[in-house]
């Protein structure tokens, strides 16, 4: 028996009364009202007369603007219309998002010649049509104003525009002149078979692959274990028991999209026979994956090897691990080992460590539990993340010694993310010919002699082979915007071949697939699957050495730091993308920054007073200096529950160079220099860090307490599998009680429990279902919503003022013991968007009827009618309405509306998003909202309307799945299902009918009749939760009165 509490901020746990009181204030910052006491109104800075002056002026200005002559508009048709283009109709082209080895097969939606949105490719079986936040955001990179627009070379210290003809000649000659010296192509992992072919045919070219966040420990361990230098495919769907040793496989580890897809299959519950996979997580900080684990144990980064070894020891008893101090951790290992043993052949262990020894032990564990061939597929090794740290290390040494004559760089940025970037920079000056093919002025490109920017992938031809036998194709969706050229063409030209990449690529595949028709078919589908060979077999030779090495590894420090990737920014590739910077982190809900995550115990030790309401209420966070050796970084700290006591976690990928533009510059600090090379691989943790209080504060823009439910607790429903089996009708009982209390005579809660008449939907009734068991908080839906609905980017300063505009947010709730917030039982992610209530409280408070109900059950918002009273937002119990405080998109007809003098100037990034080039990403079917207007989720009405029109054109009934919302399309876990609730056979109706015990409406007792159902989260633990005392009492009170309980 245990009791639990759901909470979003420490203030809510420790100081609930004050939290309630404060969260009622609409504005948390100081408002710019002049103090008028004693001085009289006229002495104030903005007295009444000024007000009248402004009023008069604005009226006159409005009248002037309105009486202006209508401009003469031109309508210019095609001169010679291509046959397959229909102006105004979107076309979809299969292509592939490839970034640093991340491969996501996508369909690019092209409207009137410009790609505006990416959707997952449903033909891709291994991603099942899902996408990631970064893939969704990549369309914005195409229109980035900071892309390199022409080829250039350095003359002295100046950068001079050049031509490809000239550079081809110059560079070929320069390379040819490097006799006796090596020519090296340094790149991130190349997954393209046709490019690998080009590189292989380039005479005397040495290819070194380098990944910002490396997996070489795993590659080398697999080689030592007899599988070859390969990374396998993991079948998470086949695993009944999953043990992750610090691998963030739902967030950032290797191929999270694919894993989330497989993982989901084991996590969705059939109510009649509730079974699900069991997920143990051993980790140092609270990761995205850890947040979704059933049971979670923490350890120091330096103990990763010991934990793996202890697990192996518990499984086969052949090895003994160094002693672990934490009793809870030890018990956890024993429990996980027992579960693994019991599920031999249906179990999987993965590790996020980059240490050869740890990975060797993990291979031994997987061998012991029969994972090879069942949950681990060695026949389809993956081709991403193939960089070997030692190769790069050797290369830098050779560069320093002057052995390298020419260095060609694509996709790699060692001047920023190499563990010893200073050494790399020094070494680079010793290389006579340095060429960068990078799209932007990143830290390495700045130092190179030549820059020949390559195309964005949406402008390119190409291919990607994420796994052996699975190839996904890239085809251009827009004519290159700038004077860019594929880097493959440069390689072809300089190797003496006359052709360009397009011709070479087509020839390569036409030959390989046998005919041009087969090639065209493959391009159209975007993906081909071929049969595969066999994998290697396991040899245990390396385990003993690994075990010994782990026993004698470096000492444990007082404070240890672990460096991790965030879902949005990754190794730094996402840093230039405003959508990704503004995507709140799944755990911390912070935007536009990196910071040090510390445990509650560490906060007490450092004197951070996080328990008071004020800690989260105000954005100022204390700044500490973290020093490792002679390297120092100053970062604000965030206190997070469920962290290892002595571990500090800092995200890599921030602190980018000024030349990358307004989005990336000045955001966070770079911590790559703190990673260390251990002789074989790079360690992404440090053990001997010293911490100094800098006695200053830094503002972090977190979104977690922007919206308050005013103390109502029936927002999330979560339980354990054991509790659910024991008492499956907990939620149903609550709902039945509502009927008892409010609909005594008819039993119809919908009709009887209200004074308002019922809305009738004669045809379609749109609805949504969100399975919280399949939501891992990755944020792909949030970015997809950004792209689809022209949601503006507001910048850090505006997020700080609670002006974020996300139509869809993912609420994060910590579930902890009632009395100990640090005893984290789990984290619940709840996507929260407009619930499209049939009895919507926003609708009846609007004085101008700008928001009202449609006959399809959609709560509609007419922007042009809105006068900005914000009554609706204040009356919305879900806090999903967003007000345009400023003209973020430049949509107003008044020219200087973005110039705020009095309060809060807009961030430069907002203006960057208003650039003519960047605005090309806007969806022409969705209004760009202007200042002073309320907006919110529309259920992607432009998509439902389009789907209906298509059905009418084809003279048929609307089919299930014709209309998919952007969030639904983006979701890797299929957590979101949208459809017609009146269609009994729709997936939505089926889910609602088959899950009566888990279905709930958020705040159902308010009788707002939402059209979004949620399925309660179930964690697979044996714990029986008895929350009668806390929640149910409160619920009964609310069920009886409809009012939140007053404290």
């Amino acid at each position, binding site marked *: 028996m245990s009791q639990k509490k759901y909470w979003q901020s420490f203030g809510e746990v420790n100081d609930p009364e004050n939290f309630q009181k404060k969260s009622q204030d609409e504005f948390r910052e100081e408002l710019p009202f002049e103090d008028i006491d004693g001085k009289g109104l006229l002495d104030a800075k903005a007295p009444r007369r000024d007000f009248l002056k402004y009023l008069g002026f604005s009226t006159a200005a409005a009248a002037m603007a309105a009486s202006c002559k*209508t401009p003469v508009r031109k309508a*210019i048709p095609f001169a010679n219309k291509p046959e397959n283009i229909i102006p*105004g109709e979107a076309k979809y082209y299969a292509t592939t998002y490839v970034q640093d080895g991340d491969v996501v097969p996508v369909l690019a939606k092209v409207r009137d010649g410009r790609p505006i949105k990416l959707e997952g490719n449903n033909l891709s079986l291994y991603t099942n049509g899902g996408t990631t936040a970064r893939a969704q955001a990549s369309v914005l990179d195409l229109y980035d104003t900071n892309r390199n627009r022409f080829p250039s070379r350095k003359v002295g210290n100046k950068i001079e525009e050049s031509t490809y003809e000239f550079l081809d000649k110059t560079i070929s000659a320069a390379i040819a002149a490097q006799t006796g010296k090596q020519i090296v192509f340094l790149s991130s992992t190349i997954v393209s078979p046709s490019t690998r072919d080009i590189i292989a045919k380039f005479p005397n070219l040495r290819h070194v692959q380098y990944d910002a966040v490396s997996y070489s420990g795993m590659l080398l361990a697999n080689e030592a274990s007899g599988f070859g230098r390969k990374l396998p495919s993991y079948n998470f769907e086949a695993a009944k028991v999953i043990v992750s040793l610090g691998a963030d496989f739902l967030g950032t580890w290797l191929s999270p999209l694919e894993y989330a897809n497989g993982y989901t299959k084991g996590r969705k519950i059939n109510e009649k026979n509730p079974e699900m996979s069991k997920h143990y997580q051993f980790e140092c900080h609270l990761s995205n994956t850890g947040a979704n684990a059933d049971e979670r144990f923490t350890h120091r980064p330096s103990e990763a090897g010991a934990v793996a070894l202890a697990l192996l020891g518990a499984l086969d008893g052949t090895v003994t691990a160094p002693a672990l101090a934490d009793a809870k951790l030890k018990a956890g290992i024993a429990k996980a080992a027992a579960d693994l043993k019991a599920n031999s052949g249906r179990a999987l262990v993965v590790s996020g460590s980059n240490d050869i020894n740890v990975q060797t032990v993990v291979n031994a564990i997987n061998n012991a539990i029969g994972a090879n061939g069942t949950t681990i597929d060695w026949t389809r090794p993956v081709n991403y993340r193939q960089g070997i740290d030692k190769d790069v290390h050797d290369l830098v040494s050779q560069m320093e010694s002057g052995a390298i004559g020419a260095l060609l760089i694509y996709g790699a940025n060692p001047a920023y993310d190499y563990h010893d970037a200073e050494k790399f920079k020094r070494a680079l000056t010793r290389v006579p010919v340095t060429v960068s093919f990078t799209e932007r002025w990143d830290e390495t490109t700045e130092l190179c002699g030549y820059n020949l920017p390559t195309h964005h992938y949406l402008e390119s031809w190409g291919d990607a082979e994420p796994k052996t036998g699975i190839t996904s194709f890239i085809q251009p969706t827009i004519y290159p915007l700038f004077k860019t050229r594929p880097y493959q063409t440069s390689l072809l030209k300089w190797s003496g071949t006359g052709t360009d990449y397009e011709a070479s690529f087509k020839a390569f595949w036409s030959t390989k697939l046998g005919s041009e028709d087969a090639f065209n078919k493959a391009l159209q589908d975007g993906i081909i699957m071929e049969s595969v060979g066999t994998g290697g077999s396991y040899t245990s030779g390396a385990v003993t050495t690994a075990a010994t090495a782990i026993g004698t590894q470096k000492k444990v420090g007082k404070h240890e730091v672990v460096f991790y990737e965030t879902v949005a920014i990754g190794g730094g590739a996402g840093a230039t993308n405003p959508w990704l910077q503004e995507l709140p982190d799944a755990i911390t809900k912070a935007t536009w920054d990196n910071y040090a995550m510390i445990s509650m115990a560490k906060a007490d030790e450092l004197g951070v007073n996080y328990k008071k309401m004020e800690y989260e209420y105000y954005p100022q966070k204390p700044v500490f200096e973290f020093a490792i050796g002679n390297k120092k970084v100053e970062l604000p700290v965030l206190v997070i529950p469920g962290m290892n006591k002595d571990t500090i976690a800092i995200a890599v990928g921030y602190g980018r160079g000024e030349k990358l533009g307004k989005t990336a510059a000045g955001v966070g600090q770079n911590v790559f220099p703190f990673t260390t090379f251990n002789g074989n691989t790079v360690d992404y943790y440090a053990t001997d860090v010293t911490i100094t209080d800098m006695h200053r504060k830094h503002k972090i823009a977190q979104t977690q307490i922007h919206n308050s439910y005013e103390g109502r607790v029936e927002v999330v429903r979560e339980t354990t599998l054991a509790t659910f089996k024991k008492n499956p009708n907990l939620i149903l009982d609550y709902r039945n009680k509502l009927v008892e209390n409010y609909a005594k005579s008819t039993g119809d809660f919908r009709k009887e429990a209200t004074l308002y008449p019922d809305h009738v939907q004669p045809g379609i009734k749109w609805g949504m279902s969100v399975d919280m068991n399949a939501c891992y908080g990755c944020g792909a839906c949030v970015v997809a919503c950004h792209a689809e609905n022209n949601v503006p980017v507001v910048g850090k300063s505006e997020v700080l003022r609670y002006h974020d505009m996300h139509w869809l947010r993912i609420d994060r709730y910590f579930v902890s013991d009632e009395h100990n917030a640090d005893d984290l039982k789990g984290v619940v992610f709840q996507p929260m968007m407009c619930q499209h209530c049939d009895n919507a409280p926003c609708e009846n408070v609007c004085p101008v009827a700008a928001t009202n109900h449609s006959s399809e059950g959609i709560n509609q918002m007419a922007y042009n009618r809105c006068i900005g009273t914000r009554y609706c937002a204040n009356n919305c119990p879900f806090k999903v309405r967003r007000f345009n405080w400023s003209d973020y998109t430049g949509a107003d007809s008044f020219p200087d509306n973005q110039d705020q003098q009095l309060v809060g100037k807009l961030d430069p990034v907002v203006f960057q998003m208003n650039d003519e080039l960047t605005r090309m990403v806007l969806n022409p079917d969705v209004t760009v909202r202007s200042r002073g207007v309320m907006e919110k989720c*529309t259920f992607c*009405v*432009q998509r439902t309307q389009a789907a209906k029109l298509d059905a009418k*054109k084809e003279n048929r009934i609307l089919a299930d799945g014709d209309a998919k919302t952007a969030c639904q399309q983006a979701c890797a876990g299929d957590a979101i299902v949208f459809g017609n609730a009146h269609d009994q056979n729709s997936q939505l109706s089926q889910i609602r009918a088959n899950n009566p015990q888990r279905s709930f409406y958020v705040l159902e007792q308010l009788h707002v009749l939402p059209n979004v159902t949620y399925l309660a989260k179930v964690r697979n633990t044996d714990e029986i939760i008895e929350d009668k005392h806390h929640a149910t009492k409160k619920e009964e009170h609310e069920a009886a009165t409809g009012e939140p309980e007053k404290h």
Partner: protein
Amino acid sequence: MISCKPITQKLTLTFISLIIFSGSKIFSQDGKALFISKCQQCHNVFKEMTGPALGGIESRGPWGDRKELYAWIHNPQGYMEKDPYTQALKAQYNGQVMQAFPSLKNEEIDAIVKYINDTYAAGENAGKSGPGGDKQAEKASSDQNAVIFGVISIILAVIALILMQVNSNLKKMSDDAEGIQRPEPVPFYRNKVYIAMFALIFFVIGGFYLTKGAIGLQRQTNYQPEQPIFYSHKVHAGINQISCLYCHGNAWESKHAAIPSVNVCMNCHKTITEYTGTDKLINGDGEEVDGTAEIRKLYDYAGFDPKNANAWDASKAKPVEWVKIHSLPDHVYFNHSQHVRAGNVQCQTCHGEIQEMDEVKQFSELSMGWCINCHRETKVDFNYKDDKGNKFYSIYEKFHNDIKSGKMDSVTVKDIGGIECQKCHY
């Protein structure tokens, strides 16, 4: 100025129909519709176009035998292989062969031939009827009525004023006669009651016009700008009966009707190099325009030399910068295909008698009230009498039941949500 007369039905009956239903029975007016949609892109009854004139077709070649005609229309290429007459035609028309219409039923071909024969016999161009005149007359008469009523009101008001003055004068005289002392009457222009009354009237009338003017801002009914090429819809869609969708085919597929690209113009104008029509082309200022000169302007854009027609390269054409007439605000979503294809609305409903316009002007005010009114009144074909309605609407069970039980006689666009905000604003 929200006025929408039920002109929709009238126009539907009188003007060219775009959408053709192939029902079980074929009527003679279907022949006309079929001719317009299938044939007139290339054929005219009286004169040669891309293809031969069709008048008197049964007296030529093998077409006296209807079966031969069916075979030819269903598969011209196949038919031509063994038929010398059509082979000769091919040679005559620069090697161009007629498009195949395999889906055209025999009865439909009969209807087309009947229409051709009837029209040929009547000796006049089809579609040149004058119900548009009715409407104009109607509009003019309603305008006249307004003027008459206004004048009468003013006269009556003046009379009332004079009578009041007379009344007060008489009263004064009678008072004088009876020797009653009364204060000197205030002249009417200083009478506070009168001043207040005039002020009130001024504000009401002034307010009405101010509001009306404000609402009308940015509305451009009757906007008739000068275009880079004097393109006459009257000549193309009216006299020559080219289907609207031949050039504006995009309206069938997409939200934009789209102006045709130069290569579409050149489909016909490769051979039609001069304007030989008998109707004069009159521009908005009432001046006559030289049609042949306008065709030459097109050639300039297309980069086409009529003397060396075969050397023309379509990819070298320059786009024509037309002046946009119909503009909707950015916050309005309008989809042509929704109206033209799903809703079976005629082009003329919104664009007026476009086939009578030499120079296009905006016919409708394109205001929200105008849209809404039409959505209130337009009926949706709800599949309740025959199988012509769109199957999409079969899910509206309640309405189908109500129609069956007689509770409703028809379903309007409004009933299925046509006047809700987010049908057009999102």
